[in-house]
């Protein structure tokens, strides 16, 4: 193709735009994509959709925005003057039962219940269609008006299922995104290294090779053995500081390795100065094989069972560090293919460094199929999280998730709403991710370009 005859349209051609166009043609996928956006919006605004504190309330001449104030400052305390007595009355936002106050005007959240707070007038599995009760500000127990009905029923202690579902969205999406984020970082890095260098393309002097191995061991020592005390203390103080200490240790590991690697650049005569191949591909492939030979669900259950503290953060990290093999395999295969293409040969011929070739030239072109694997990975991470909550492992008892709601339904068969609604929520989310994955695969696969 001669350059000067390129039309405007051809000049504008980019693979990204093309893929998006292909993706848009796939009706189920694009609908799923919009549903996913909706789910994200629901998750982000869960606090304002389902909350037992009103969005706006006027009480004794003073206006409050309790839901907003608790969102930005959870320990917000405010007071008002009672006009009848002239005394100051303290209103503690997080514990006040706003439904019992005689409010002058009020705007409730669409679902006026919080997921973890029981409603004692509707205990013992109240069905969505059953008679529900409500205690009005006058202190009388009446049949609940439409606004205060539990539209999807309640559980044994009177927690609202609809509210639990709304807040569970946040948990599920977070688990999917964060755990797959961790998995993609590990998987893409290792897969790219393995595919790009193979077993023969990374050449270093023996001295540098041995120094790097020594660096990894020393880095592990300084990061995790000499600092073991700080890490334990960190986790004793809370998950946040524990993860911070862990991150410091990881940086130390990488730092020491890099330092000794630099030191390995020294030119030495004789045996140590000779070049040798670094078997990057074999190392990565063996680790993938080993991780794949362990039953993944069992591995995750075991690791979360030995953790002293049950928390979603730890669960996400565990799912992340055990789920990178698929992504690594895809990246590796793609890089193996790209390595032989002309533009990479050209980059090499121009004398670009390995790092530049890999990051600037190979990576942007090699990522497309990885997105497919990430989309399916998110679906399976959500499935694992809900499965674990269903079994009651790894997730704190008080956390309301889709899986934990479903397991409540397993205990009480009468409460079909505890089975159907969370189950449907999990099913929809997984289907959405799977359909997006399929759409991405079709859009990104050059074989289907017709």
């Amino acid at each position, binding site marked *: 193709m001669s350059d000067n005859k390129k039309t405007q349209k051809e000049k504008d051609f980019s693979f990204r735009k093309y893929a998006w166009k292909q993706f848009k043609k796939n009706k189920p996928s694009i609908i799923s994509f919009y549903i996913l956006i909706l789910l994200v919006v629901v998750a982000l605004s869960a606090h304002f959709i389902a909350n037992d504190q009103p969005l706006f309330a006027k009480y004794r001449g003073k206006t409050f925005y309790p839901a907003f104030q608790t969102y930005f400052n959870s320990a917000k305390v405010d007071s008002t003057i009672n006009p009848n007595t002239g005394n100051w009355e303290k209103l503690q936002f997080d514990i006040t039962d706003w439904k019992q106050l005689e409010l002058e005007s009020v705007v409730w959240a669409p679902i006026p219940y919080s997921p973890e707070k029981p409603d004692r007038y509707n205990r013992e599995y109240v069905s969505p269609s059953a008679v529900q009760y409500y205690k009005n500000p006058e202190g009388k127990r009446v049949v609940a008006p439409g606004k205060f009905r539990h539209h999807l029923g309640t559980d044994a202690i009177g927690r609202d299922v609809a509210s639990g579902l709304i807040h569970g969205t946040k948990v599920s999406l977070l688990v999917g995104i964060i755990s797959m984020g961790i998995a993609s970082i590990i998987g893409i890095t290792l897969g790219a290294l393995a595919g790009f260098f193979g077993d023969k393309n990374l050449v270093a002097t023996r001295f540098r090779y041995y120094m790097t191995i020594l660096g990894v061991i020393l880095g592990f020592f300084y990061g995790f053995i000499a600092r073991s005390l700080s890490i334990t203390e960190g986790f004793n103080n809370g998950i946040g500081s524990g993860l911070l200490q862990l991150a410091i240790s990881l940086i130390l590991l990488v730092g020491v390795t890099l330092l000794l690697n630099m030191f390995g650049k020294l030119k030495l005569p004789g045996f140590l100065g000779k070049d040798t191949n670094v078997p990057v591909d074999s190392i990565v492939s063996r680790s993938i094989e080993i991780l794949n030979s362990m039953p993944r669900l069992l591995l995750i259950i075991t690791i979360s069972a030995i953790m002293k503290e049950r928390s979603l953060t730890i669960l996400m990290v565990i799912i992340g560090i055990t789920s990178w093999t698929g992504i690594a395999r895809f990246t590796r295969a793609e890089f193996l293919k790209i390595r032989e293409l002309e533009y990479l040969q050209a980059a090499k011929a121009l004398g670009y460094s390995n790092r530049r070739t890999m990051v600037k030239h190979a990576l942007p072109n090699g990522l497309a199929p990885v997105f497919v694997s990430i989309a399916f990975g998110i679906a399976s991470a959500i499935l694992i999280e809900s499965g674990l909550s269903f079994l009651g492992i790894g997730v704190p008892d008080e956390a309301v998730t889709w899986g934990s709601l479903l397991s409540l*339904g397993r205990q009480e068969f009468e409460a079909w709403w505890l089975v159907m609604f969370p189950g449907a929520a999990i099913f929809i989310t997984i289907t959405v991710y799977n359909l997006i994955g399929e759409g991405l695969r079709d859009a990104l696969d050059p074989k289907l370009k017709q």
Partner: protein
Amino acid sequence: MLKYILKRLIVFIPTLIIISLLAFVISINAPGDPVERLSKSANKEGTASEQSSATKKVKQEIRKRLGLDLPIFYLSLGTLADPDTLYKVEDKAQQDNLLKLTRQYGNWEAVQNYYIALNEALEVTSKLNTDEIYQSISTFTLEEKMMDDSSYTDTIYSSSYSKNQINEAKNNTNFDILSLLESYNQEIIESKLLDIEKRYAENSFLAPSQEKFESVKTAFNYLKENASSWKTYVPKIIWYGNNQYHRWLFGDGGERKGVLRGDFGISYIDNQPVSAKIWKKFTVSFVFIFLSIVLSYLVSIPIGIYSAYKKNSGFDKGSSVLLFILYSMPSFFIGTLLLYMFANPDMYVWFPESGFQDPATFSEDWGMFKKIAHHWPYMVLPLITYTYSSFAFLSRIMRVGMIDVMGQDFIRTARAKGLGEKKVVLKHALRNSLLPIITVFANVFPVAIGGSVIIEVIFSLPGMGLETFNAILNYDYPMIVSIFTISGFLTVVGYLVADILYAVVDPRISYS
């Protein structure tokens, strides 16, 4: 081919070693001390001190029997300050704390002295007898006490401390020393030492144990002054010839024969051999997995072939949507729904709710058919749950593979030769589209051993999944390590079998 298989088998060995080691490392870091748990069932008679010395002996025996008095692995990477013989310390919590102290101060000798002093102080304080102290510090008085209609004399001890006070002071000191044994933070240790000192100053009757306490204080001060923290920044590698992993592999030369000779150790829960337990449960899971695989192959291969053959027909589109929906259904949702529909007094009670057999009527002596007739109602719902997702998955793979093959040149050639459609599809195309299906078959055994946790928990089936779940909840680590190793082994074997099957199905693939 044989050479290839041999080569693959040799690669197995390091893989398996690493898998078992990983499982081992996880189990070592688990909370709880198995010795504590196993010794709880031991003797509970005799006085307190007799009992404690007896439990101590039992604990020692258990530790020895389980091999917990050995180091974990051949090599251990630690700091220069770390002692070589730490694994000999009996209490796991104390062992952890000793290591923390050593890594903080870098002086093992001083840490050891401090610990010995602490233990001696603990022994002395726990031997203090409230009654004896009370008697020794009180003065006798004889008092006559008048009651309503009778009078009697009673010996009353009068003392500046009541028995309760003595008891409290004694117990608090004891408790403080016990918590000192498990604290490593310098500030906490110092504040506790101050507390105890204050108590000694206030309660003169504790004097008999004060001497030991003073030696604790000196030992701690010595430790503080003689800290050599530089040692904690120097790495050291220690070699242990006889260790837990070695014993796990090769046995201890006596009762235990080692994994290599088929002995996976004893369960911490009930002292049963792990291999016997696993075998019993494995058969149950295997029956389900095998039946479900056979069922799903029987259904999904024809569906896959037909929808690929009639691509874009109504059947293809309809089955694709249905299969996709099934594929995205979480198994615990389907399982719970099935139970809700068919094992629920409010809906239909067609099948029993849980379990594998009715213990009241089942008898081991029955013939095979009677046993099957007894078991089958229990198996229907779990089997559906086991099958539906793999069936959806397989059909989709089969369809894609078949479409791929149907578009290739040799199919056109076969048709051009004038072969009948039946022969083209079932002979030429089918054989070539079987490759991905084989990959799935390779995973049958590993899935049987570990992948069915959720389903077996829902239906309370006494299989591997439930067993594993219970083992994990009860920290039964010999069991978990064995399950990981066995399933790792089966997965690797599965891959190998799949590779060989590839060559059988497709003669173009050769490994020589």
